């Protein structure tokens, strides 16, 4: 009588992630309306806040003597926020359900697809979903005349991808620590102030210097700063700091998520 055991394989670079992505595409085939409707939310914010409320606001200073219309100020922030929200939702609630209830990964790792592939596949899927929204939003922005140059618009889609990647990785890592649904409220309590205070609706110059410095090291602020620089055409070396920050955050998230998932799934 021999007992079949799964020998722990050494951690490796994920190369079979696309199988995990394919699984998610198949799972969502019948629920595409949910994905599609997610596109409207930032557009409604743009119309309501950017133009409706924006009609009560004069031009906003974006530093360095530049100023832009309020809609032009808010639109890139909404794009960054929607990349964050999509990635976080996918990597927390949906991922938690799969990990905890559907036991999806228990099934996945019985195949040649490994834990690293699954973790990376989840992140890639969240990024793809975010990418669809970003492209749609940029098209709307362009139609409304809120983008300074075409290449700025194109690069802002890449920037939104990077934001999505960073937050999806962070969300996946955090979810591996969650025990119950109520833990998701803590995520909401962290997302909401980021959404409201990261130079999204007003410049951070209204804060005292110490608070400004604090906001500047939070991830959504870096994302908003990056996209706003690209869509308004105020490009400088500071944008590289944003990129570096988001890449490092994403890499750290993937690493933590992989280690945690291995410990959880390969017992």
């Amino acid at each position, binding site marked *: 009588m021999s007992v079949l055991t799964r020998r722990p394989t050494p951690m490796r670079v994920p190369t079979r992630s696309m199988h995990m992505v394919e699984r998610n595409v198949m799972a969502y085939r019948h*629920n595409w*309306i*949910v994905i599609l*409707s*997610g596109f*409207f*939310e930032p557009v*409604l*914010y743009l*119309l*309501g*806040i950017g133009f*409706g*409320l924006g*009609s*009560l*606001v*004069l031009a*906003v200073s974006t530093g360095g003597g530049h100023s832009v219309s*309020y809609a032009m100020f808010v639109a890139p922030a909404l794009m960054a926020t929607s990349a964050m929200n999509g990635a976080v939702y996918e990597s927390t609630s949906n991922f938690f359900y799969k990990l905890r209830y559907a036991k999806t990964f228990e099934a996945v790792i019985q195949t040649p697809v490994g834990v690293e592939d699954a973790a990376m596949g989840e992140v890639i899927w969240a990024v793809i979903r975010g990418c669809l929204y970003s492209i749609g939003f940029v098209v709307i922005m362009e139609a409304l005349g809120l983008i300074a140059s075409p290449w700025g618009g194109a690069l802002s889609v890449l920037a939104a991808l990077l934001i999505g990647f960073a937050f999806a990785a962070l969300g996946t890592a955090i979810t591996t620590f969650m025990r119950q649904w*109520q833990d998701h*409220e803590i995520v*909401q*309590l962290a997302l*909401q*102030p980021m959404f*409201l*205070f990261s130079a999204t*609706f*007003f410049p951070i110059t*209204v804060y005292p210097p110490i608070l400004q410095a604090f906001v500047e090291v939070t991830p959504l602020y870096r994302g908003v700063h990056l996209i706003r620089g690209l869509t308004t055409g105020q490009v400088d070396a500071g944008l590289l700091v944003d990129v570096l920050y988001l890449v490092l955050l994403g890499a750290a998230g993937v690493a933590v998520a992989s280690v945690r998932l291995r410990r959880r799934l390969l017992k």
Partner: protein
Amino acid sequence: MALMAGTRHVIEYNALIYRRIWRGSIAVSFFTPLFFLAAMGIGLGGLVNRASGGVNGVPYLDFLAPGLIAAACMQTAAIEAMYPILAKIMWDKTYDAVLATPVTIPDVIRGEIVWITIRMFIVATMFWIVMYAFGIGHSAEALLAIPASIITGLAFATPIMAFTATRRNDSGFAAINRFVIIPLYLLGGTFFPIAKLPLALQVLAWATPLSHGVALTRSLVLGNVTAPEAALHALVPLAYFAGGLLIVRALLIKRLAK
């Protein structure tokens, strides 16, 4: 009296569940208004006040805060009338168990409506306290903002419950949220005056209960309420509530009575 006992049991059931999650729920009900009033009211409000000298003759924060209370009740009522109700109809089959006892379908409907009202009361009261701390609504009249915003939410509770009674899965809820609740929230008079909308949308906005609920709550807090206007603004949401009640009754009986 037996009738009221059935209703009471339904309320008690919800309260027992809520006892397990009230800490998180209260925390969210407190921090949400705090963050929103600070960011939108003061941060963004500063830009509005500088450019336009406030809205309708008051600082932007004063304009925004009462509208947000009514909108918060709308959102609470909408959520509570969707997932928990469908879970009890279909996923957990709670109502099947409930209806095997002397509790009747009208008891269930009454009990759920009272429970949603209690939830809105908590949300509105927390919001009111935060608003008061921001220096708005320091009058006895302003306390009426709490019932006014509850009326606003009730206008959504029964029609959405009726919608829920027809559902076989939850994918319609995302659509209600994105095509009804969020557009109303962003364009329905909470963040900027309805007069700023294109004419066709203005007509549409005034046909919805949110705009009236927001107008009522706002006039009570700002102290410029007049009786005929208040009556109109209260009647529209109440009409939605009453209409929804008739429909949800018919639909739930159809779905649950065996």
